Structures are given as C-alpha cells and as structure tokens.
C-alpha cells in the first residue's frame, strides 16, 4: 500500500463569531499519497488558499487534524511548526517570495542555514538541483536581474533543498507568461515523476492543472468534486477537456468563476 504523506481530517477554518461567522474551510478531508501531484481548484472564495495556508502552518485551523508523515502538525507548538516550515514542507508562491537583497545561490541556501544543514551537504544538493532546473548560470544574480521563470526556478530549488515531504505550491504560474508557465509545469511534472516528489498545488489555471494526477474542486469551503487522471490511457489534453467541463458545471464558464 502507498504511504500517505498528507492526511487531512475534518479540517475547519472559521472567521468571526456568532452570526458573522465565515466558514472559509468547512470540514474538508482528503489525503495525498507519496509521489502524487494533486491540484486544488475552485472559484474565488472557495477556500483554496485558506486550505493551503492551514496545511503550510501559516494559519491555525479552527478544528480538524493535518497529519504530515503521521504527525499532527495542527497541534504543534510554534517552535515545532518552525522546524517543519521550509524543511518538511517546501513552498512555491505566485510572487516567488525571494529575498531581493540576496543572490540566487544565497536564496537557495537560506533554508539550509536556518535549519542548520552542513554546508558541504547543501552544496552537494544544490549542485544536483541547479543542474536539474538549469539555473547554474544565474546563481550569482540578484532577483531583480532575473526573469519571472528564472525566479520561480530559484524558488523551486530553495523549496527542494531540504528534501521536504511535500511541496505546497500556491498559483506558481500566476505571475508567468504562457511559455514560462509551461516550462515551469514541465519541470514540476518532471520533479514529480523522475524524483518522486509529492506536490500539492492550488491553481485556477486549467492548463497547469492538467499536469496533475488528481484534482480536488472546492466550493464554499467543501470538496465539491474530484477528478483523477487515467494515467495509462488519458492524454494531457483529454484531461484538460474534462477539467474544463467541471469548471463549466461549477459556474457557467471558466473566465467567470475561477
């Protein structure tokens, strides 16, 4: 049986009190297996980002459990959460979140410094990662001297450095043009397939979502639908067509609802 990397049980995140309560996430349960590439889609306000923020320990859920490799991170104290951030979970953001006053290499090395990894070991890993992502020539550049695609690849290398159990990606292609977005998704897909990385990605872009092996559709804080790609038989464009169908059912047109 495949190992459950993430196991979310009855997760709730409510804002406000009494009559003014807003249920951003309202009892979501799902799991992510090792080596899976799971996408989360849904209209604005459906709770995608809140769900991801709960999983990434940026906000505390109101109720429920989040098991990462068998440990309930929702119950962690702040110190323990800090240890998990960046080491057990890698992040990719729409706006890259690179430190603009550090070079590419320094940005990638930052989690290693924070979590106390030996420099020799981190150098070895960087060598491998930068080769895989094709970013060696930009390592000494500052973010302001890089293109959007380059920035996201530096961010990807940073996310992968400590060999996290799962990569959480929040609209990673959101700030990229079509060509660079496709390029990045190819690389994420390769990471998933060739290096067996587990990825959980929030996106509104069906193009990007078509790279996933499974997609959860959220509506009003609950899971509304789930799509699983038929690995053996289904092409990426067929999967894209099915995604587009669900989106149409969700609200009558992709451009309108997502």
């Amino acid at each position, binding site marked *: 049986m495949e190992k459950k990397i993430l196991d979310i049980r009855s997760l709730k995140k409510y804002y406000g009190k009494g009559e003014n309560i807003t249920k951003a996430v309202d009892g979501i349960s799902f799991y992510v297996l090792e080596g899976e590439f799971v996408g989360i889609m849904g209209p604005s306000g459906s709770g995608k980002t809140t769900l991801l*923020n709960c999983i990434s320990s*940026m906000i505390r859920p109101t109720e429920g459990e989040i098991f990462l490799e068998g440990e309930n991170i929702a119950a962690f104290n702040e110190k323990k959460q800090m240890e998990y951030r*960046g080491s057990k979970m890698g992040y990719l953001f729409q706006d890259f979140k690179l430190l*603009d006053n550090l070079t590419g290499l*320094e940005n990638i090395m*930052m989690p290693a410094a924070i979590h106390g990894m030996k420099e020799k070991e981190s150098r070895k890993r960087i060598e491998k990662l930068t080769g895989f992502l094709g970013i060696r020539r930009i390592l000494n550049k*500052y973010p302001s001297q890089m293109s959007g695609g380059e920035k996201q690849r530096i961010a990807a290398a940073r996310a992968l450095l400590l060999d996290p159990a799962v990569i959480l990606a929040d609209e990673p292609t959101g700030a990229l043009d079509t060509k660079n977005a496709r390029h990045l998704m190819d690389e994420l897909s390769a990471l998933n397939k060739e290096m067996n990385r587990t990825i959980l990605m929030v996106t509104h872009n069906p193009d990007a979502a078509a790279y996933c092996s499974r997609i959860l559709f959220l509506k009003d804080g609950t899971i509304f639908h789930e799509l699983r790609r038929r690995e053996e038989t289904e092409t990426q464009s067929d999967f894209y067509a099915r995604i587009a169908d669900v989106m149409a059912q969700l609200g009558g047109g992709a451009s309108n609802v997502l």
Partner: protein
Amino acid sequence: MFFDLVRKNGRRTRKENGIFFVSLIISVAAFYIFLSLENQDVIIFLKTMESDAVQKLLMLLPAFYMVSLFLLFFLVWFSGVYQLERRKYELGVYLMLGMKRSRLFLLLLAEDLWNSLTALAVGIPVAVFLSEMISLITSKIVGLGIIGHHFSFSLQAVVLTAIGFAGMKLCAFGILSGRMARREILYYFQDSEEVEEKRRSTVFAIIRILAGVLLLGAAYALAISGRAWAGLGMMSRTVILGIAGVFLIFSAIDTALGGIWRRNRGRLGIFTFRQLTEQVSRQWKSLAVTSLLFLAAFCCLAYGISAAHSLGGSGTAHSADFTFREGEDSPEGELEQTLTKTGAGENLQEPYEVRMGLLYTQSIPTDDPDTVREFYYDQLTEAAESLEDETERTGLTQALRYYDDPYLINLSGYNGIRKAMGEEPVELASDMVMIYRGPQTVYEGEISAWEKILARDLSVEIDGKNYRVGSQVCNDPLVADRLITISEGLIVPDEVFDSLVGDHATSYWNVMLNKDLVEKDGMMQAVYQTNRLLQDSGLDYESYLQSMGRQLFYIVAASYLTIYIAVILLVIANTVISVQFLMHQRKTSGRCRILALLGAGYDALCESARSQVRWYFLVPLAAAVVNSIFGLPSLLTGLWSGAAEDRTALFLTGMVVIAVLFVIEYVYMKAVVRLNNTHLLHTVRQMEEAQERL
C-alpha cells in the same frame, strides 16, 4: 469624531514611537534650560559684577536659539518621515475611502500638534526641575552657596520654546505633506521599494578609503600642529579636508566592512550581511553626517565638562580678598572707620598696607627733575646673555628689556602678602633688593633661569649706590584684582623705598575675609555679602572675586554652551540613525515574513536585527571615537590656553565622556531593538493577517 481620532492616533504614535517622543522631550528640556539661562543663580551673580559680559552672552542667545531650531528641524523632519512611512498604508486607505488630501493632512497636523503639546507638557516641568538642579549644583560647585536660591520659572522661555517648536513642526510638516500630496495613491500601498543591487568595484572602494584617510590625516596634521588655527581661510580648508575625508571613507565603508559582516556565522548570517551592506551602502551619506555629529558632540561635551570641572578650582591661593586704594588726602584710619560703619569690618580680618611706586629713571619724561633716579642693571643683562640654554637666554634677555623703569615695592608690604598667603617672610639687608615678577607675566621656565643668574651674586646700581640682588625671585600677587598687575618690580627695604619713591607711592590696603565666614558660607557667598555692604561706602576697592568672576564667566559660558550644543547634537544624531534603521527594517519587513515562512523563528530574526542595530550604530560611533582621538588634541591646540595638567585632565575627561556616551548609545540601541522586536513579533505572530496582505 475628528478629535477622538486625533487623540487616539496621537496616543498610538507616542506608544509605538517612544524613542522620538523621548527625543522630543529632551529637546524641549534643553531648549527651556538654555532660554532660561538668565535665571540661573550663577548668571544672576555674575550679572552683579560682570554685567557687560553677561549681557553680551545673553545677546548671543537668540543666535544660538536660531541654530538650535535649525538643528531641531532635522529631528522633526526625520521623525516625520518615519511616521508617514510607517502609516502610509493607513493613510492610503483613508484616501481610497474618499478622504480629501486636505482633510487627511489636517488630521495629521492636528495629531502632530497634539503630540507636540504633550511633549511640551511633559518636557517643561522636567526642564524646570533640571534647570533648578543645574542652578543649585553650579552654585554649590563655584562656592556661591545655595542659601540665597530662589525658585525661578521663566514664562518667556516657555513661550519661546513653544513657538520655536510649533514653528519647526509646522515647517517640517508642510514640506513633508507637500511631498506626500504629490504621490500617486498606489505609492501608499507599496510595501517594499524596488531593489536595484549595484555591484561596486572593490579596487575603487579601496582607493576611496585610502584617499579619505589621506585627506583626514592632512586635516588632523594641520589642526594638531596649530596651523589650522592661523586664520579663517586655513580653518575652512582644514574642515573641508576633514569632512571630505570622512565622506570618502564612508562612501566605501560597506565594502571595507563587508568582509567582517560576511563572516557572521549566525543562522541568518548571510541575510544579516546583505541587510547591512544594503543599508550602509544606501545610507552612507547620512551615516557620515551622523558620525560628524557624534564627533562634534564628543568634543563639545569633553570641552564643556572639563571647563565645568575647572570651576571647582576657584578658591586658589591669593593674597587678598579685597584691596582698598587710599585716596591721596584721606585721613589716616578712615578705612577702618568706614569698614566698621558699614558693618563690613565684621566680615574682614585686619587690613595690611602694601606700597608701591614707579622708579622714575631717565627713560621716563617728567616735569620734576628731582625725582629722576639713575638705574643700571648691566650685570643682570650680561648674566642673562651668558646663559647656556638658548631658550632661557632669549627669554630672560627679552624680559630684562623692560626693566628700565621698574616698580618698587616696600618689603613690609610684601611680607604682609606672604603672611596672608601663609608663607615665610622675606628678609633683606639694607643694601639688598629682590626681583619681583608679576605672576601673570612669568613664562614657563623663567623663574629657574632667574635663579641660575641670581646665584652669581649680582648687583644693580640705583642713584650711584650698589644693591646686591637676592637669590630669590618673588612672584606673589600684590593686590586682589588679578588684572591690576605689575610685571617688573624690585622689592626694597622700607627705608630705601621711602628715599627713592617717597610721595609718589601708592598705598593699597589688602584685607582677607574672616576664615569662619568663608568656611560657613563659602568663598563666593562671603565676598558677595561683603560686596553688598561695601557698595555704598564710597570706598575705592577691588575684590578678588571680580577678577575671579571674569574667569568664572568665561568658564560658565563655555561649559553651558558646549554642553547644550552637545546634547542637541547627540539627540539629533541618534534620532537620525534610529529612524533610518527602523525605516529600512519596515521597508524590508516582507523579507522577514519570507524568512518566517522558511522556518526562521522570532528569536533568529531578533538576533539578526540585534546584530544589524549594533553594527549600524557602531559604524558612525566608532568612526567618531577614532576621529575624536585626534579631534580632542586639535581642540586642545586651538582653544585651550590652560596649563599642561589641565590639558591632560581635559584629555582624560574626553575619554570618560566617550565611555558615558557609549552607555547613552547602548540605551538608544536597546530602545531601537525593542521597537524593532515589537515590529518583528507583529510580523511573525500575525502570519494570518500578513498572509492575507501578501
């Protein structure tokens, strides 16, 4: 509603921005103390005897007031920039909600005025208290006593302080508002500015540092050698050289220190290094200015405190507290009678008479040929010319040039002086004289030169008669007032004095204060009381204190002014540096959020910020300390005319001042760290809120 908002925001600003609020209070206090100088006991006292000089000092106050206001402008400006930067998001929201810019700025202005009023309300009582304390302490130190102290409150000083403050605030606020008004609304919502990292050439940086060190070295060489003090032109050139040197060094200091910062092994070492490099390379101009301000403050404080320190030495040995000059035809015993009549006699000891008169020689034209005496002192000149040491030879030969017509002083009078000073009387045979040199005109090493030649049994000739010259040189002050001095004289036995000077002699009656009174009330107070009794007596007299008063005045003026300037400079330098640091931290708080996301805890972020604060303060401070090692000797060369021991004392005071200033800086750094930690805690703990904004 409007006023509620004003009050609430005002309170929040004071709480979040305590460091500037305290700076503002210190400035208010310094302003009041300075403006109410007139009411200080020591100034009131000096006014009674040195009214002209005090008046001149008080006339200088408006100029200092203007200069202080100008400096204060920067304090207000920097804290204003910080305030607006900190609140720009909130201001942007007001604008987005449709608040007119004019109304928004009215709101800010009202808040600012409210805070200024609070600063005044806290600052003025503190200032009044400090002013009284300074007044009492100074009185005590100078020996004025604190019995006659009256509580004083200067409404004029309060009004001037308030007007100055309000004026500066309005002025700075107007310019800041103008700048803000021109911004697009989007600016208010931009979190961090675009960073363009420039790679600088290391070689070029080294060249700049070397050039800076050379320029600075040249400036100090000019200042310490004394050439800089030759004239305004030379001084300006030295100052420009020095400032240019400091600026050149600071323009490359990030490269110079980068090597040290890079070695930082903390968890966020590389981040700390980059933050520091970025901040220092961007703010090098203000860091250079801050360093110069620190230096100026160091020097002012060291000078002011050692000047104040020398106040304690006002009771030095002297021969008379009062000297009465007897009118030519005043009847004998009149002095005693008047003293008893005015009641001053009770304060005084027995008077003793000192007589002196010019020896009229051929060199002085006179109507009465009978009084002309022949005076030859060739043996003295020859002996001086035969001295081996060149400095001694030229010095003494020069001094002897003016011996053509010396003053004669009677022996019994001079012995009276010696007795009053607690010294052994001088003995002279009837064919002997002694050399007298006024204490203020004697140069270093002169007495030993005299003693060398006088050991040879020399003599002088007066009216054809030879007098042996005693081997001792006398140089005790003859009268109470130090400014009436006789530089060249001969002490002669009384009968010789009578025969040579006779009717031309001037009599001075010296008198000391009762020891009990001095012990009880202090020297200054005793003289002050006696002075008051003697004011209307019609007697012609001088008091020791009058000459002391003159010196005291210079010292008080120098120490008050320099300490005042130092305090203002320190407050401004610290505010500038704190504001810049905090602004940079705020602008780059997004980076801390990213680090927190990557797992850096609050502790690690605080540790990095602490290290940044330390370096950011240390760079200008250390530069100023290194500069002051040369700066203080330069100041000594140019401004200090005192004795060598005083110079050492001044230098030691300088070192103590630097140590004290480090403590002050430590307190400031702590305050900045605390303020920044609160901000970091907000950034890290409220990830929820932060995340929504990201």
